[in-house]
């Protein structure tokens, strides 16, 4: 059974069709890398999955739970929408940490609120709340250790480097246990010397039960870490397959072009 099934997603902005029918599936524990030139629709697709944009057409299911279906006309409540969103985590290109809170609070803020909501619904006591918060704290510390930032837990985002901020953002997404963790060009806003630490953290997350989708321009990273690559151009999937298939034996002209250009850039930079 696939964790994620996306079928026939369409999205139009100002009469321009950005997504022209995207379909794919993802198995549990897989890492999917979405590549393609800017403006091709990669980020829009990711934002559709996270319900930051509502697609015009199509269907998305996670673990057989229908997240979005354009055929369904009944309106869903905000509470339901929030619940559906939590299937996904999203790490932004610009980190989007909350600047007024320290690292620890950035991680725990949403988790506290969700726990409070649950306890209120179950009519739990103050002690239940305290215990739940302590659990969240412990988990936050554990995750911070995982991304190598435990000693920065009391620092504010402005005191961290870009790479550290992005690692905090990854930790913040992880604490809510999303079924699928999405990355929207996680290293594009970083200086080249800082991309390594972030990519290392992302590859370190790879395990049999963490499913990830990474929109990226880092071809080497995609080739090494992804189980599956999707190449999107002009709103459709031009090429799809394992890294080997896509990079070594591309079928479409657009992929061949795109790939030769990115190789040019890399070798051009070295000379």
């Amino acid at each position, binding site marked *: 059974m696939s964790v994620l099934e996306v079928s026939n997603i369409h999205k139009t902005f100002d009469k321009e069709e950005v997504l022209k029918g995207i379909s794919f599936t993802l198995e549990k524990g897989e890492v999917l890398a979405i590549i393609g030139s800017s403006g091709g629709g990669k980020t829009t697709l990711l934002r559709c999955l996270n319900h*930051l944009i509502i697609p015009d057409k199509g269907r998305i299911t996670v673990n057989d739970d229908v997240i979005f279906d354009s055929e369904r006309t009944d309106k869903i409540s905000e509470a339901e929408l929030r619940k559906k969103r*939590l299937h996904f985590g999203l790490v*932004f290109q610009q980190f*989007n*940490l909350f600047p*007024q809170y320290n690292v620890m609070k950035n991680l725990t803020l*949403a988790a506290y*609120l969700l726990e409070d909501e649950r306890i209120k619904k179950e009519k739990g006591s103050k002690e239940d709340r305290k215990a739940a918060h302590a659990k969240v704290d412990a988990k936050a510390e554990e995750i911070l250790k995982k991304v190598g930032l435990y000693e920065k837990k009391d620092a*504010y985002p*402005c005191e961290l480097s870009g790479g550290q901020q992005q690692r905090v953002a990854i930790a913040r997404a992880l604490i809510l246990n999303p079924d699928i963790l999405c990355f929207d060009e996680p290293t594009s806003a970083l200086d080249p010397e800082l991309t390594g630490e972030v990519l290392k953290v992302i590859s370190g997350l790879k395990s049999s039960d963490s499913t990830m989708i990474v929109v990226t321009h880092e071809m080497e990273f995609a080739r090494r870490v992804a189980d599956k690559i999707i190449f999107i151009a002009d709103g459709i999937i031009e090429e799809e397959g394992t890294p080997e298939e896509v990079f070594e034996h591309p079928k479409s002209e657009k992929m061949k072009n795109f790939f030769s250009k990115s190789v040019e850039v890399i070798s051009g930079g070295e000379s």
Partner: protein
Amino acid sequence: MGFVEVTLQLLKGFNVTILLFAITLIGALPLGLLITFGSMSKVKIISKLVKGFVWIIRGTPLMLQVILVFYGPGLIFGIGGVGRFTAVVIAFIINYAAYFSEIYRGGIESIAQGQYEAGQVLGMTKTQIFFKVVLFQVFKRIIPPMGNEIITLVKDTSLARVIAVNELLNEAQDIVGQHAIIWPIFYIGAFYLLFTGLLTILFGQIEKKMNYYAG
């Protein structure tokens, strides 16, 4: 009349000035936020109406508004109006709320979309995002313009004199008229300077406190 007596009488007026200042702030700070929500409403008719209201309030002199609130009910409806001080308070609260609402709006609109989106993908409600994420950042950003506006309020309190409220300036004029001495009218400048000076220091302190983070 000697210096001490003049000072004592002026302090009475200064009391009224401070009271008007404080009540205006207490009323206008929250009312301004309400007006902001109205002018940012997605319901077009509400935002249009509220924006029209803000235009009228900001587009006419505060002194005129004070006069209107005080004399208007009697002239238009033939009913007894409110007391002098109450009339000034009402006019000031509405006027300052309109100005504050625009400062708030500027602050809210300056917050990056990414902050809202980050809250959304973390499963927060719109209310939670506004109060737990956005509001505090807005607060930091609007301190300088709010400081400006609040210092202006100190001096605007003297407009209450137009309907004979016994605030500081009015009190000084009474002394000048009754005792044929001119210096008290200049002396009150020191009161205003002291008041605005303290506020300037206070706002400086708040700004410094908020500098623990950047952004």
